[in-house]
């Protein structure tokens, strides 16, 4: 579709409005401000280390390692746990035996251990 001549003129003038544009300049004493910024950017070892540790990548990597170590320890423990091999009857017997042990050790027994 053809543009109306007045509209075309307006658009063309707008497109040409940057012809002959001059370069913009920053405020005076720009170099001083750059140096100030550079000095602010000078970090101590602790600041560098803390900013490194607080990075999301480092945080998530750390969490992942901790979870991995935990999972490894749990799996390892499961594999090494020895099976007692007791059946349900044997367990019941063991509990019953323990309940009928007459010997009870009180503080009196421990304090008078040498007496007959």
């Amino acid at each position, binding site marked *: 579709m053809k543009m109306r001549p007045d509209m075309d003129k307006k*658009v063309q003038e*707008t497109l040409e*409005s*940057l012809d002959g*544009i001059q370069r913009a300049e920053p405020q005076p004493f*720009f*170099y001083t401000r750059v140096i100030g910024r*550079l000095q602010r950017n000078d970090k101590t070892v602790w600041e560098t280390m803390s900013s490194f540790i607080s990075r999301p990548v480092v945080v998530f990597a750390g969490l992942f390692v901790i979870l991995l170590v935990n999972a490894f320890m749990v799996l390892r423990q499961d594999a090494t746990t020895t099976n007692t091999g007791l059946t349900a009857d044997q367990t019941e017997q063991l509990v019953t035996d323990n309940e009928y042990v007459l010997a009870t050790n009180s503080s009196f027994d421990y304090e008078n251990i040498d007496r007959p």
Partner: protein
Amino acid sequence: MDERILVEQLKQGDESAFKTIVETWQNMVYNTALGIVQNAEDAEDIAQETFVQVYQSIGSFKGESKFSTWLYRITIAKALDHERRKKRKKRFGFVRSLFGEDSEVVVNPPDFNHPGVVLDKKEKAATLFKTIAELPENQRIAFTLHKVDGLSYQEVAEVMDTTVSSVESLMHRAKTNLKKKLEDYYKDRE
């Protein structure tokens, strides 16, 4: 002074070389940043960041391209990064305001007036800058570098690390898009 000598001196930690570099290229860097972000304070901030980056990473400049090309690339990267951060902040502020939190909602900035535009063209240039901001990133950078910074197509191609024909194509698409957007803009105002 020859830019290669300046770069070598800066690599050896010469502060006077850094001062010369800043004073030689500060207008170029500031003007490029201003053309992209269209805000004087942000452009100043980006220009400072650019020179800090130059000071810190001059060791990585191998001299494969011109020093000014390297400077343009850093400036553009910083300006685009700044814009993304600003957009993120704007979105986040809007979301927080939806939840009734007391946060500052970033309002749309007023029309941008470039200080280098001739007085009688200021209004039209402000309209054009508003429309340029709506262009896709590559078209916007090519158009700004050519029209605002006055770089030739060859120089734009070097900065954008592409071919001259690609820049020609980007410029053609940018102009077509701008024409269409400006036409819509003026129609809406009638």
